């Protein structure tokens, strides 16, 4: 696990007595794709696996469930090794991407399915199912077939069905993906509330950073079958470690070498004939001193654009050229390239005043105080 600082309060290997609800080292190989992911989740904790399509996050989830065999590693629930346990013997509950409620059963029977298989009598299973549906505000829909439920209702029935087996590990595969945008905010908030009540470990998979930030206590970013960053959501949002995460959370991110409050950025592949005059690597001034490999991040809205070299406040100014512009909310996002590539958000009025179009040269400035610098 990578070292994280201040804001992270997650238990690490150092002397936390509680056995993690889930401790897994997942290794699997499919063709040229390899997955190597280690996960530890404490009881009551919600971990989000965030990553682009094809990163292996769904494979990781299916491996935890036992739906795909591992080629190496282990899976432990409450300290007990269950690496080779068949799916139906694992203490898990799973919510699938499009919920997969059995179409030939009522909502109630869907939820009672698991308890029935665990050996409860029909009456006892239905009672438990009815209790869960009631708790989720769905008692009016207990007798309804799944296709007559709305997306949010189907999601809650699926969650109730997964929780009905009293799992130690709850797995959610893209729980928000099947919902339309208009209902997402409500459903997400409600899901967060329901997940908080669950006392086992929860692992959810998403490609939406908002889902990860709202629903999870911890985020593990998976790219190319590896965990590239792990931490509490605020930390990940503030200090991204890869270009993918930076894009997700909307930050400009650069890798470089810190020497005091000056960071020398790594050379980017595209180089300058933009007439900036000064060759060599770009420098970024930051407000806290560091030493060694460092990452530098700042939000696009912290970037100001000037028609000619500004004098005074900003300590970082670069002469760049405009690559393109696009609407971004009520702002305009200007993509700039040159000695470094970055995005700047300015108002439409400012854009009109500057009269920028593709290929134009412009000065970009960022205050040192707006730049986040952390060990790389």
């Amino acid at each position: 696990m990578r070292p994280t600082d201040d804001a992270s309060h997650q238990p690490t290997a150092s002397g936390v007595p509680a056995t993690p609800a889930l401790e897994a080292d997942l290794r699997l190989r499919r063709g040229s794709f390899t997955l190597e992911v280690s996960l530890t989740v404490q009881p009551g904790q919600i971990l989000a696996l965030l990553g682009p399509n094809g990163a292996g996050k769904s494979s990781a989830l299916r491996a935890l469930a036992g739906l795909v065999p591992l080629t190496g590693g282990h899976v432990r629930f409450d300290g007990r090794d269950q690496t080779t346990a068949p799916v139906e013997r694992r203490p898990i509950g799973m919510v699938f991407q499009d919920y997969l409620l059995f179409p030939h059963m009522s909502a109630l029977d869907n939820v009672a399915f698991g308890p029935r298989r665990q050996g409860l009598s029909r009456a006892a299973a239905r009672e438990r199912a009815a209790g869960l549906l009631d708790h989720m505000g769905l008692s009016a829909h207990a007798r309804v077939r799944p296709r007559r439920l709305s997306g949010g209702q189907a999601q809650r029935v699926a969650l109730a069905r997964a929780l009905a087996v009293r799992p130690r590990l709850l797995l959610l595969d893209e729980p928000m993906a099947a919902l339309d945008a208009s209902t997402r905010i409500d459903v997400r908030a409600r899901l967060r509330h329901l997940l908080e009540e669950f006392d086992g470990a929860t692992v959810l998979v998403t490609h939406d950073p908002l889902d990860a930030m709202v629903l999870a206590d911890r985020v593990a970013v998976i790219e190319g079958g590896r965990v590239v960053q792990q931490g509490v959501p605020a930390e990940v949002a503030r200090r991204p470690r890869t270009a993918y995460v930076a894009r997700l959370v909307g930050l400009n991110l650069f890798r470089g070498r810190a020497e005091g409050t000056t960071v020398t950025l790594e050379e980017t592949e595209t180089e300058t004939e933009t007439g900036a005059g000064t060759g060599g690597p770009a420098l970024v001034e930051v407000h806290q001193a560091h030493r060694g490999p460092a990452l530098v991040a700042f939000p696009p809205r912290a970037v100001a654009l000037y028609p000619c070299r500004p004098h005074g406040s900003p300590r970082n100014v670069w002469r760049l050229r405009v690559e393109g512009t696009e609407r971004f909310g009520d702002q305009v996002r200007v993509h700039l390239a040159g000695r470094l590539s970055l995005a700047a958000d300015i108002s439409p009025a400012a854009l009109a005043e500057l009269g920028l179009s593709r290929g134009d040269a412009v000065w970009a400035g960022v205050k040192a105080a707006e730049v986040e610098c952390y060990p790389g």
Partner: protein
Amino acid sequence: MRPERGSGPSAASTGTRERALRARGGRPPWILVLPALVGVAFLVLPMVGLLVRAPWSTLGGRLLQPQVLSALWLSLSTATVATGLCLLLGVPLAWSLARTDFPGRRLVRALVTVPLVMPPVVGGVALLLALGRNGLLGRYLDAWFGITLPFTPAAVVLAQVFVAMPFLVISVEGALRGADRRYEEAAATLGASRTAVFTRVTLPMVLPGIGAGAVLCWARALGEFGATITFAGNFPGTTQTMPLAVYVAMQRDPEAAIVLSLVLLLVCLAVLATLRERWTNV
């Protein structure tokens, strides 16, 4: 005349306007239409002949003749029992072909479909060689249990199972392959054993496919002739099914043959109607 855009449509002209606005697909090519028409005529004409030449005035009396009733009863009961046997053996077989990956699976599937293309008479001969009194297995059935199958109603059923089961297996296997396996995974995560997954989730979800397969299977069993007459013989009351009765009647009393044929046709139409319902539902 081109209809005007944006003018308020009057209730009466809405239908014609829509028709007028639809792009025309052009005339269908005669090289396709002509053979199609001949094909339809060829399929329909014999049925028309059957209806036209039927002895409608004496129909009621002929239908109630004991040999007609016994043949009909034998046909319906053996076809139903045969379908039941096909379901009992064919559904697990289809499941094995669709859901497991045992060595030689392709070969087994090929073997299962052989009766589809094999002439039924050949099937009857093969059944005799296997289950006849001196057959591969029949010899021991006779010697150890005193069971002789040929020329009994049981032989009728076996002949029907032999020719009809492939229809069921193919249709159910297709339904199983078409079913979304992720529901089975969901059931497994809820603690369902493989048996429970099959009975509680897979089976209910492919039930329409099994139904369609069973109907096809039953119709095939009902019409079975070649394998039956070879393996079970043609004894009125015990092994003479409707198709055999039609054939025999045709030799001496064509009108009786027409009556029997009409009954069979009616049953087949009922089957077709059931199938159509399923096809339009899905």
